[in-house]
């Protein structure tokens, strides 16, 4: 839908992503100007109306666009924004955020570069949330929601959060580190209005499960509880009581310490769950207990998401059959299933839209996916044993091809495999041209098409040519500059590109920087791209969120030049021990209105081009 704004006798037409009632602002009213010659108002709409209208906009992109129309609209948007999304915590400071947006209830904050997930970023790199909390405590005391990704969060910060924000409702920590279960205890103890506690895949020091018992007895507001990735035992009694009294609980993902026997008791307390993460699924029940579990599952009519299933074996999977028909998201990525076992299960899941599995299911398992899940939109296949000495498990190109024939709506794939061919990828995207996220990881770096011995250039060429909606791409295998030429030429909607062990020369990276107009995040490791490539993106980096280059050919001089030419970019270099002085081992470049950061540790050099 379009918003048409008449302003100063010119039109601005904005495309928005939101359904929006079209309205027109009357342009500068000449009558008004005559009557009120000092009026600086360009629009007769009262601010309140404008704000009310703009408050209907949700997407940050829409809001950014709207705020650029004119000053009035900028102000109105600022006053009506309640959720702020900050993709790079160093691109802006908390003070600047608070100055612009006076009424924020919900913050999403992302910190470290994504490659920190793979241990490529030094531990003390930064992204500490505490300075943000300190500012928020003053400026946004009524903050309700905080979602953090790859931030450093200490127990002190969690306690600070728990104590200083009386309305706090939602805490989501994904891939964060620096805290322990003590911090969770503080949250449980003090956050009286908490509705969501979602702790996922964090580097958490798991001291004890006692934190769960810290929820007060009169606490009943919880709707989402996810502690699946914690290891220590929680007091089951406390958990059961918590689940019983939180009548609005919709999402419950427990950890391995919760046995099947206990799971049954939880299900009985909370049959209205929509998302369930089981604990251990070890087959250790008596016949009667098994029957009770089956009954309990039968009562859960609303379950659409299932995960956990640790140590599940074929033996007990049938207990899930009652809920399978309504499942839309099944996460089996911690379950070692074989192909036949998966097939039996999937026959029960015709409505599946998202599936995560381990590659133990093999190509045969994936054939079953293709046969049984026509509505599938997302598939992720993780390697069960990425460092396997002998390839006894795993999936090949055949598996994904089979899926593509059966699941034409597939638009998100993350696929770890040990062999792939250009022809297979071409077939896959021909069957499924709607890919928005194509992440292929051929696990051996630089491996060519195993049938033709050619580079995998044509595979990714096919992907970018066919999948015009592609937003995210991860490439792998033996790749020359040709891959990047294709990407630059065709991937016009690409926003995120991940490259490893690929390319032949600077030209590769240049093609991407020149051609991918919507590129926001570029992360590169172990590629022969040097200063020429780095500097070719000089004018591009300000329109991107960030660039990461590690183990490439970039030198300190190249980085200094970049920093000098582009003062609004932060150019940070991390040096490895014992590396050449002139080499820039790891480079992280990002736009920022907050200037160079002041909390960089010694191993991070901020270049200022001086």
């Amino acid at each position, binding site marked *: 839908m379009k918003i048409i704004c008449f302003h100063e006798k010119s039109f601005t037409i904005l495309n928005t992503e939101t359904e929006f009632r079209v309205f027109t602002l009357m342009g500068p009213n000449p009558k008004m100007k005559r009557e009120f010659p000092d009026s600086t108002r360009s629009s007769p709409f009262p601010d309140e109306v404008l704000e009310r209208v703009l408050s209907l906009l949700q997407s940050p992109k829409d809001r950014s666009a709207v705020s650029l129309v004119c000053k009035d609209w900028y102000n109105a948007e600022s006053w009506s924004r309640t959720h702020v999304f900050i993709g790079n915590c160093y691109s802006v400071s908390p003070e600047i955020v608070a100055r612009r947006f006076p009424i924020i209830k919900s913050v999403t904050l992302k910190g470290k570069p994504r490659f920190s997930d*793979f241990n490529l970023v030094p531990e003390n790199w930064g992204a500490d949330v505490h300075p943000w909390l300190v500012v928020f405590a003053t400026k946004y005391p009524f903050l309700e929601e905080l979602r953090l990704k790859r931030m450093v969060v200490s127990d002190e910060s969690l306690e600070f959060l728990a104590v200083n924000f009386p309305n706090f409702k939602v805490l989501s920590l994904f891939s964060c580190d620096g805290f322990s279960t003590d911090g969770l205890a503080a949250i449980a103890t003090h956050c009286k209005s908490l509705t969501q506690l979602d702790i996922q895949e964090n580097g958490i020091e798991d001291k004890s499960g006692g934190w769960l018992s810290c929820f007060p007895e009169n606490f009943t507001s919880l709707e989402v509880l996810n502690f699946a990735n914690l290891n220590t035992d929680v007091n089951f009694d406390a958990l059961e009581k918590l689940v019983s009294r939180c009548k609005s609980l919709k999402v419950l993902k427990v950890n391995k310490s919760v046995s099947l026997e206990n799971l049954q008791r939880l299900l009985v307390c909370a049959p209205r769950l929509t998302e369930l993460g089981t604990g251990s699924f070890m087959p250790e029940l008596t016949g009667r207990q098994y029957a009770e579990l089956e009954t309990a599952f039968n009562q859960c009519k609303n379950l659409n998401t299932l995960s956990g299933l640790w140590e599940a074996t074929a033996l007990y999977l049938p207990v899930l059959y009652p809920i399978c028909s309504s499942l839309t998201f099944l996460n089996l990525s911690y379950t070692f299933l074989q192909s036949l076992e998966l097939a039996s299960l999937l026959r029960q899941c015709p409505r599946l839209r998202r599936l995560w599995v381990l590659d133990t299911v093999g190509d045969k398992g994936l054939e079953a996916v293709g046969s049984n899940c026509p509505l599938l939109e997302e598939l992720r296949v993780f390697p069960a044993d990425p460092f396997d000495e002998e390839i006894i498990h795993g999936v090949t190109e055949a598996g994904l091809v089979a899926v593509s024939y059966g699941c034409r709506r597939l638009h998100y794939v993350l696929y770890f495999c040990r062999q792939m061919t250009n022809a297979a990828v071409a077939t896959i995207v021909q069957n499924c041209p709607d890919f928005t996220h194509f992440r292929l990881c051929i696990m051996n770096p630089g491996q060519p098409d195993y049938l033709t011995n050619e580079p995998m250039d044509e595979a990714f060429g096919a992907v970018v040519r066919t999948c015009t909606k592609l937003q995210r791409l991860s490439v792998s295998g033996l790749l020359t500059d040709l891959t990047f030429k294709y990407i630059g030429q065709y991937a016009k909607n690409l926003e995120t590109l991940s490259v490893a062990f690929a390319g032949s020369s600077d030209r590769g990276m240049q093609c991407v920087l020149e051609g991918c107009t919507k590129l926001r995040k570029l992360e590169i490791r172990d590629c022969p791209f040097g200063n020429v490539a780095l500097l070719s993106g000089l004018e591009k980096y300000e329109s991107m969120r960030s660039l990461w280059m590690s183990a490439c050919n970039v030198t300190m001089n190249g980085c200094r030049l970049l920093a000098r030419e582009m003062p609004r970019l932060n150019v940070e270099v991390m040096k490895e021990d014992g590396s050449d002085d002139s080499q820039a081992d790891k480079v992280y470049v990002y736009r920022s209105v907050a200037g160079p950061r002041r909390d960089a540790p010694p191993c991070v050099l901020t270049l200022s081009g001086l």
Partner: protein
Amino acid sequence: MQGGFFGGGSGGSVCMSTVSMEDNVVMSSEDSSSPDEGELELGLGLSLGGAACFKGSGPRGCQQYARILTAKDLPSKVSVSSSSSTTSSSSTLSRAIATAGTKRTADSVAASNGVASQVVGWPPIRSHRMHIMVNQAKSQVTEEFSSMNKRKNAVEEKVGNKNINSDNTKARTSLFVKVNMDGTLIGRKVDLNAHGCYETLAQALENMFLRTTTTVNMTRLSTPEHKNMIDAKRHSQLLGGSSEFVLTYEDKDGDWMLVGDVPWGMFTSSVKRLRIMRTSEATGLGK
């Protein structure tokens, strides 16, 4: 500073740890011959510890240099491909390639089906997931091979009348055990149930460890020593007692025995893992 370099095939990843762990002398000599700017170096190498650095541009593909592995580099398993094409696990071969200084060609890269596990942060799986997988895999494997029977019985008792034959009768068609060879860091796995007798097992192991099925490219690079290996006679060396190596196994009591003494069925039911031992070290193993 840059470590040495190595090239070719899956041998790349495999050789790396072999060479660096065992042949520090070799590595350091390679250090000093590290390439200058623009010089073509060996083909596929794998960045270890993130210290890889490319010198010069132009040549296709990655030229990477490895540091000498230290304890902190976590020298755990390195994968070797088992699929159709090449494997080259002998340290001799890797040394041969290292000294040869060949350019990487598409073919030699084609040989690389092994997974590079020694590369930091590769494959790109969150460490969180990695920990969980490793721990589960361990327990999974242990269960499969040593307590399968125990578990079946336990389950039978517990589930009572319920028909649990789905697990019991499901044919376990593979019985993988680890095989390590003295002098080789990289272990393999072999499916004992794919063999019905000692002869085929020995043949398979010889193919895995003592010979490579490398293509012509590799023979180009081989030293005379290596060539001998390729030309070696194809009859069983491991069982004949006449070669440099002898095949042994650890049984469920933890004792190391010579393979071939007991009937095959008895062997498969008690074997936990295999080891190709140097004959010189195999003294004391009762025959």
